[in-house]
């Protein structure tokens, strides 16, 4: 077994694609129309284009419990997932300049530094740097 795809629930796939590529710097990998509303839409890290794909999945629109779960996590401030960066402070500065909102500013926690931002698609996302 291999890890090829991990999913992130998004409320609006078009908006999510714009955010994850324009703001976060991911690159679109697959975009396959499934029906009039939904697409199989994946992005990859620019630095690891053969790496694990992120599926921007429209589950909150299609499955009520997914919507409820996403909302509860978001309101509790809990990140849906996390991405690794070399420098949390530099990434925080860059993203805030682009208008992103952070619920946790760069914080050292033992051997890691973390920050948490709102992905505007219904999720908190954590960035982490190993110290």
């Amino acid at each position, binding site marked *: 077994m291999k890890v090829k795809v991990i999913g992130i629930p998004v409320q609006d796939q078009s908006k999510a694609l714009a955010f994850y590529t324009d703001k976060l710097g991911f690159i679109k990998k697959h975009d396959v129309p499934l029906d009039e509303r939904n697409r199989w839409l994946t992005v990859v890290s620019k630095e690891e*284009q*053969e790496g694990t794909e992120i599926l921007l999945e429209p589950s909150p629109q299609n499955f009520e419990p997914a919507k409820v779960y996403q909302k509860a996590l*978001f*309101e*509790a*401030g*809990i*990140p849906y997932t996390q991405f690794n960066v070399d420098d949390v402070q530099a990434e925080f500065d860059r993203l805030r300049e682009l208008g992103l*909102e952070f*619920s*946790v500013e760069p*914080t050292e*926690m*033992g*051997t890691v530094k*973390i920050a*948490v931002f*709102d992905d505007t698609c219904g999720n*908190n996302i954590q960035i982490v740097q*190993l*110290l």
Partner: protein
Amino acid sequence: MGLPGFLRRPWNSVRFSILKAGTVMNLYKREIERIKRVCYSNDRQIATVIAARNFILNNFAAACSLETLSSRHFTSKFHFLRLFKKYYGLTPKQYLTMKRIEESKRYLKAGVSVAATCYRVGFDTPSSFSTLFRSRTGFSPLEFQKKQFSQSQSAPGSGTCCQ
């Protein structure tokens, strides 16, 4: 629910923080503070393991023995070993091997020969390098290198990484 209501009903603080998520103190931020207290309250230990990790990252190609690492931080070998593992989940030796394998992938992708890669990242013999590389990645160094080249040639737009 406003602040006065919260003060009257402190047992309801978790719900309060959920309602006010993103503004002051949400559940996750509370957890961060709690885990900091529980796991990361010993600043000196943390400084020691962070310095040791940085030493490994900067000196992975040279010999990094447990003795060198522990004596740099004036601790006994075994105390240091336990500390490192406690904070990073790997022993210093495992961490060093992981770093060397990671670096070796970069050399192999750039077309450096297996033997040259082996010595550049600090392994003693190509055979021990190959064995470790295979156990971590599922491929021998040569297979890995060939796979990288065939992938970069077949994938449109990704050829630049190997030029």
